[in-house]
């Protein structure tokens, strides 16, 4: 009824208008809905581009008046919740009743989900390259501080290993294996945030060592801000990044505001962390006992460790003329003293919302983190503002701004490693010499005077214990603070130049300007109290340094989407120009001799002496052109092509530009008419072949020119020197890769399975630090193109979409695994030889071998067979006077009892006799050429390690070294399950690595017993006297033993299965909350890294391997374990 009335009225008005055919300069009228007049409704004049020219708002009675600029424009009426009406301006009076938008019938909007990265907005179904996307919804509420933690075990082919458990340290990431051998080109994947690459200057940095800096960018992004993560794996996917994406790309998309009422969300996470303990350490009593044996054994000298020589381990009293006797009678657990329960608080508030014109999302977070090592504190404030403003249908302006401020109070010393080494009979606090009670000052080991050293006949602790700082004192007294500000403003304009829908040709221009401003400050102070040095030897050290880096990037993209009348064809093309320039500068000042005690004055400029000042400046520029197209026929035959040209300042004029093409295709077989029978069981079956080439550039500038720099003065003459050999023919490193992917989706996308196989070949490898003959005056050139290597592998991942659904119960899972194998195909023999270290016959020395047609990371060493039970002389004396046959018989009987002694045996196991039927002693790297080589080692003896004499030559030397395994895992991956029941949700995630070996150097040094460092309790099982059957050799101080060579004793299987997290989530139903004005409360609790199933004996089998050297556990701070409780509230 109402509608008819309205139509009649409109008709009437229409007639009225035609009657007065004159120029309309203003309009007026009344707006109402079915409840009555509308107050605050919007009336606006819009032009052909959809831009708003003029607007008015209705008053209390729904009346409006508005001037009209151009009668050819249109007039639009809108009100929240009601249907918007657009009418031509052909009358002066508009009396409208707007109908409710909620009254319209349910409509099905068929929109295709599109890729959001830096390339073309291709419908997800038509993506033909190897990518994998994860929505961060899955991580919500986890006790993670950065995205890399969350990604571990989630992406097939992405191997992530955390560098250490210290606050603010990053991870090592390898996507489909390392593409280069060089440590100077970074092998980590490129991190892209909202299409932007954060450029910080790394000139002159060792890239492999710059992980902390590199990963600051991940740490600077609050996980709460991230909407989704896409990992681009093959060259076809990364081609739009050209040379920057040579190691794969991780694209992060941040959350943006959505239309609707402003929504305020607050989340709080409380996380308790602790460190898993490694091996048990010796107590003070065990330690002194071990040291005494260690000093006795090499020379069998009872006085080697007596109270005159080493009073520190003899539990003296005040009668012994050792003034420090009280300090060396303790049983200190240094590790316990420096570790603690850490607590992390993460607060985050977001406000998001939007209307017809503008959307916004503002987030701000504050994190406060106390580390698991004492006195480590990290404070971080981060904020991100994303605004979108729709100027018109054609023009949209967006601006993003993010700021992160981090203050990281670090430890000056590596407390854990010192705590593991420091002598446990020492006390933390200085004992009162009279009462023996702890005083309130820390105890620092005193240095010996020359006279004291002479009286003792040398100082056994000089190289170690005397230099170890008191770690507790260091934590509390020294200062090391890092502060950083990171700002990223960005402005984007989108302009649709032609049609607005798929029926017209569309051409859009997107222009953006992005800046990255990063400032870093480091301040440190190392007080006198921590060292027992004299004032003249430079104490009260302080340092202050700062660096700032500004980079500017602008991108201009034109995207053309033609409209074909034949809807079978679809085509998109994109051309982009990108320009980057930046510069950075740094300065630092170091001082000493500050007039400070108690750490009041800590700045190097505060009256001390300046020991060093330096400053640096660098700049970089690059230019990129990208062309890319996407064509699909009938939505099931897809072809993509990209060509990118990179220009960089790092090469000379001849090879300044690198060109990186890629092609990929996809055939969705399941969409073929003849496959319709398989639907809906088989909802998608597609194959995706791709080929592409990406590149890599060196990390340094000015390599192609001769440089002169200043050097040390001579007399009063300023001095300069040539700095380099000019690289006349430096080229891009190129990576050519093939990928074949298979997508199989079942049951209407309930179960999705992807299989990928790839092969990528790196040619013209940029080898850093290339050794040249030094008769040129230089030992290395920074880069050299040489060698060829290949990564081959496959990946598999499954994810599900409500796989099991029964009533309120649903279950989902994700599984992935991947395998990568690398092989060196070609390399200059000079380089190969240089990469292969020469064996120096020292304890703990690892051998690096890089061989053609082999993967790197291979571990070589001796075979370990236990400990010799009996001394050489025992055997020699026992067989004295026997005939040859008697000796053979005696030896057979001896070995039959399972006894061992250090004599040479031949391949048959018979004892080798020399001269007058004397058994030949087992030697180590022995030579008869009188070069005096190693005359101090008499040969192995009881209690020494037994190494397999593989060639039975009666001595252990480099020829007995054998292959012990590979550092590369056979399989890496992860899996996880999510269960939900109504408002409850439980999700779990596991990661694993299978088949890799690790050299446990941490254990090696904890069981070596060659120095004065504290050892693990395992050494209590050491060989002490003849006949002892054990696997731990005797304690031997000094270098006259070879009991800790790299052998399979220390090479361990690094396979593990780790539970990354388990999380339980509960949301309170909205209807119970409305009375307190809340929309949502959800609670969650999670455990992170609760257990690792592994045979590895070290603290954590998560050991990074880099480049060509094997994976070695150096006893880094292990990844901590944690418990998180959190709450999220929506207002």
């Amino acid at each position: 009824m109402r509608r008819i009335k309205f139509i009649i009225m409109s008709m009437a008005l229409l007639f009225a208008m035609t009657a007065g055919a004159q120029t309309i300069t203003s309009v007026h009228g009344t707006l109402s809905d079915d409840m009555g007049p509308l107050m605050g409704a919007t009336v606006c004049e819009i032009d052909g581009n959809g831009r708003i020219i003029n607007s008015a708002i209705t008053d209390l009675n729904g009346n409006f008046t508005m001037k009209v600029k151009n009668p050819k424009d249109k007039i639009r009426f809108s009100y929240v919740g009601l249907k918007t009406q657009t009418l031509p301006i052909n009358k002066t009076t508009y009396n409208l009743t707007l109908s409710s938008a909620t009254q319209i019938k349910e409509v099905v909007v068929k929109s295709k989900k599109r890729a959001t990265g830096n390339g073309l907005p291709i419908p997800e179904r038509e993506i033909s390259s190897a990518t994998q996307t994860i929505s961060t919804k899955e991580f919500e509420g986890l006790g993670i501080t950065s995205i890399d933690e969350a990604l571990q075990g989630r992406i097939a082919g992405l191997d992530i290993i955390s560098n250490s458990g210290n606050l603010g340290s990053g991870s090592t990431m390898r996507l489909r294996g390392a593409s280069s051998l060089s440590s100077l080109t970074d092998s980590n994947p490129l991190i892209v945030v909202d299409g932007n690459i954060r450029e910080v200057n790394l000139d002159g940095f060792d890239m492999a060592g710059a992980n902390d800096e590199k990963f600051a960018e991940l740490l600077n992004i609050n996980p709460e801000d991230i909407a989704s993560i896409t990992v681009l794996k093959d060259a076809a996917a990364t081609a739009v990044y050209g040379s920057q994406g040579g190691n794969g790309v991780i694209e992060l998309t941040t959350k943006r505001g959505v239309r609707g009422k402003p929504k305020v969300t607050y989340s709080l996470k409380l996380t308790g962390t602790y460190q898993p303990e490694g091996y048990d350490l010796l107590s003070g009593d065990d330690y002194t006992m071990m040291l005494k044996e260690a000093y006795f054994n090499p020379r069998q000298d009872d006085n080697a460790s007596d109270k005159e020589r080493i009073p520190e381990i003899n539990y003296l009293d005040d009668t012994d003329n050792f003034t420090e006797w009280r300090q060396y009678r303790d049983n200190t657990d240094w590790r316990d003293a420096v570790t603690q329960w850490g607590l992390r608080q993460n607060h985050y508030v977001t406000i998001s919302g939007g209307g017809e014109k503008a959307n916004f999302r503002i987030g701000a977070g504050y994190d406060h983190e106390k580390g698991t090592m004492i006195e480590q504190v990290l404070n971080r404030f981060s904020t991100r503002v994303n605004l979108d403003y729709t100027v018109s249908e054609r023009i949209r302006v967006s601006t993003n701004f993010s700021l992160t401020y981090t203050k990281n109070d670090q430890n000056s010393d590596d407390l854990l490693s010192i705590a593991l080494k420091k002598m446990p009979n020492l006390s933390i606090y200085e004992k009162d010499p009279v009462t023996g009670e702890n005083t309130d000052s820390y105890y620092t080991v005193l240095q010996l005077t020359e006279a004291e050293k002479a009286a003792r006949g040398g100082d056994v602790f000089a190289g170690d214990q005397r230099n170890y700082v008191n770690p507790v004192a260091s934590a509390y007294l020294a200062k090391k603070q890092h502060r950083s500000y990171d700002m990223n403003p960005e402005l984007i304009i989108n302009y649709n130049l032609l049609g607005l829908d798929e029926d017209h040709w569309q051409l859009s221009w997107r222009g953006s300007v992005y800046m990255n401003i990063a400032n870093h400050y480091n301040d440190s102070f190392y007080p006198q109290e921590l060292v027992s040095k004299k004032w003249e030897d430079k104490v009260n050290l302080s340092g202050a340094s700062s660096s700032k880096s500004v980079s500017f990037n602008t991108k201009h993209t034109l995207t053309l989407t033609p409209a074909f009348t034949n809807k079978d064809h679809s085509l998109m093309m994109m051309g982009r120009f990108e320009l980057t320039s930046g510069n950075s500068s740094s300065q630092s000042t170091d001082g000493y001799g500050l007039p400070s005690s108690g750490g009041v004055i800590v700045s190097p400029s505060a009256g001390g002496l300046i020991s060093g000042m330096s400053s640096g400046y660098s700049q970089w520029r690059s230019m990129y052109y990208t062309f890319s197209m996407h064509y699909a026929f009938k939505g099931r035959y897809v072809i993509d092509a990209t060509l990118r040209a990179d220009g960089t300042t790092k090469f000379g004029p001849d090879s300044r530009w690198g060109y990186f093409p890629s092609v990929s295709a996809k055939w969705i077989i399941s969409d073929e008419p003849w496959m319709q029978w398989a639907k809906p069981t088989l909802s998608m079956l597609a194959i995706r072949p791709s080929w592409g080439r990406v590149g890599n550039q060196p990390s340094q500038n000015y390599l192609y020119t001769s440089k002169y720099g200043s050097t040390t003065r001579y007399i009063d003459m300023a001095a300069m020197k040539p700095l380099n050999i000019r690289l006349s023919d430096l080229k891009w490193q190129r990576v050519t890769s093939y990928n074949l992917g298979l997508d199989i989706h079942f049951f209407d996308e309930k179960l999705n399975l992807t299989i990928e196989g790839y092969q990528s070949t790196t040619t013209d490898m940029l080898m850093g630090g290339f050794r040249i003959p030094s008769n040129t005056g230089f030992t290395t050139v920074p880069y050299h193109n040489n060698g060829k290597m290949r990564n081959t592998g496959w990946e598999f991942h499954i994810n599900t979409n409500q796989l099991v659904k029964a009533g309120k119960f649903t279950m989902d899972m994700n599984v992935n695994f991947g395998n990568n194998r690398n092989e060196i195909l070609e390399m200059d023999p000079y380089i190969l030889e240089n990469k292969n270290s020469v064996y120096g016959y020292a304890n703990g020395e690892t051998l690096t071998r890089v061989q053609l047609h082999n993967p790197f990371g291979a571990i070589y060493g001796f075979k370990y067979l236990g400990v010799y039970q009996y001394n050489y002389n025992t055997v020699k004396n026992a067989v004295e006077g026997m005939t040859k046959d008697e000796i053979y018989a005696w030896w057979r009987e001896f070995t039959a009892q399972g006894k061992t002694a250090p004599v040479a045996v031949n391949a048959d196991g018979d004892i080798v006799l020399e001269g007058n039927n004397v058994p030949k002693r087992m030697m180590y790297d022995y030579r008869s050429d009188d070069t005096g080589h190693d005359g101090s080692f008499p040969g192995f003896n009881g209690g020494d390690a037994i190494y397999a004499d593989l060639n039975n030559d009666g001595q252990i030397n480099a020829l007995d070294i054998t292959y012990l395994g590979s550092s590369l895992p056979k399989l890496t991956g992860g899996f996880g399950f999510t269960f939900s029941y109504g408002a409850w949700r439980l999700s779990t995630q596991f990661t694993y690595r299978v088949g890799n070996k690790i050299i446990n150097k941490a254990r090696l040094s904890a069981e070596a017993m060659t120095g004065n460092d504290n050892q693990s309790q395992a050494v209590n099982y050491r060989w002490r006297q003849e006949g002892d059957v054990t696997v731990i050799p005797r304690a031997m101080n000094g270098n006259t033993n070879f009991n800790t060579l790299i052998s399979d004793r220390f090479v361990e299987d690094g396979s593990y299965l780790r539970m990354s997290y388990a999380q339980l989530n509960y949301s309170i139903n909205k209807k119970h909350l409305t009375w307190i004005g809340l929309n949502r409360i959800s609670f969650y609790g999670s455990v992170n890294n609760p257990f690792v199933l592994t045979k590895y004996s070290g603290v954590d089998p998560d050991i990074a391997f880099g480049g060509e050297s094997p994976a070695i556990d150096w006893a880094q701070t292990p990844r901590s374990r944690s418990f998180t409780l959190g709450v999220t509230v929506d207002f």
Partner: protein
Amino acid sequence: MKIMKKNYYHIICAICVICGFSSCADFLEIKPQSEIILEDFWNEKADVDNVVAGCYSLLQDDGVRRRMMIWGEARSENVMANGVAINGDVDLHNILKENITAMNKYTTWNGFYDVINRCNTVLKYAPEVAAKDPAYTTGDLNATIAEVTALRSLCYFYLIRAFRDVPFSREAFTDDNQTMDLPATPFGTVLDYLIEDLEAVQDGAVKRYPESENGSSDKDRYQTGRITQDAIHAMLCELYLWKGDYDNCIRYADLVIKSKQDMEEEKEQRRRSSAETKALVKLRLGDYPLVYDNLTSTTFGEAYSEIFATGSSKETVFELSYDKSPSQSGLPANSAVVSLYGGSTRTPLLVGSKYLKEDIEATSQRTVYEDANKKLDARMYTNCDATSDAPRIRKMASSRISINASTSSPKADYNTYADNNNSSSWIFYRLPDIMLMKAEALCEKMRSTNEETTAEEDSIIAAYNKPLLEKAFELANVVNKRSICKKDLTGADTLQFANYASKDLMTKFVKRERQRELMYEGKRWFDLVRYSLRAGNTDEVIEAVGHREDVNKGFVQNFFKKMDAIFWPYNIDEMKVNRNLVPNPSFSSGENSSYEKTN
């Protein structure tokens, strides 16, 4: 379609903007801010001077200096390891044990070649500067050429003395497409090249650097701290001595001595010493302008502080001059000396050998010091003090040495340099060195008698030898007399010619004088090498190394049979990148070896 048209306009604009950016091809040309690139360098005299200074300062680099000391001294009988301190440097310990392999870090030579390359770079570009900068005259250019040629020759001379045959190049290495893996040029050829080069440039060299009025300017150190014509003559003197061309050796020695005498005369005209002093000096030093102690008191040894600690002494021909208070100026200290010879708290790695100490303590049958000198040879204290508890190589580790010789057993007193403040000069050539080289050449010119010569021939030979013997004795005796710690020298205190009046005795005396005078100055091992090359056998090396405590005697006999063994092996890393180097057969690579292989 008006809208469309407008849009096309936009597109064109956008394309123009984009192309506008790319049209500036210069965008990708950037220049470093803290360094200068070749295209902007070599324009003026200062550029040349700066790189020349860079050659000198690299010679002061710890690695280079350490090798000068270790190559020249560590294998000789002058030194031994200092107790447990040597554990701080395993490679040095292995050298002292004669367990040298190609892996030993002291077999690397890159610092020397770096200096050589800098010199070659100057030689390449300095003529271009002369063409551009009118302030840089031909005279300046010739002086520069002489200076860097001399420095280059000095480095090569070190290298051939240590390694015998080494890669030789007069071309600068600037690009990576140059041939780098040069084969080694034979010892003799390099020696000839060096002589040829220095003969050619000697006339262009600076004769005298200007002196300041009050003598307190840093520039006053140029005369000894930079290459002068005297320095080139001194080098030629030594090169000819190695070559065995004794007439030329003597000729250049005389040029240096004459020049020093002239300089002393000029100074004397200004100084106007009393006739009494002149007489005392004349008595001790003849006409040779050596540094002498205060001859009217009983304190001695200060001459050596003046030569090494004060530096720029009148007898010095060429030295590396260190800043006088490096700990404050931040300029390099003589850290190689501190680490090898000791500092105020730093325990030295090397000390005087047991053999030497026993020699000092002996009162007769001495083999290094002369019996006749009794305890009065100042060098018994200034080299290494056998009586001291904290052994330091005093000559360079001390900023002040004074020997109180008021009683018959002198007592020495030292101030040791602080660990970070050693500024003792590293002297390449000083007058006693030149004098003793001349004496050595004179000895070599002598003819020897043997059983086959007739008495008549013997007398002819004796007559021929006599002036040579006297001249050689005079030279060596002046050096000896300077270090006698006695106020009023009587004939009984000095050495008598009669005791050395044959070629053999004189030669040995000159060699001994050379050993004790230049002890720890990085000369001894090179002298032994020279003696061996001259004799064609290694007897003297075997004898010298035989005195060492820490080396197996049987091994020495065996090992040093071959001449190769007195040189050093090429470093393994060098051989890995330069296949044209033939490894020294006396040394193992240090790499994998098998018991079976060596048997």
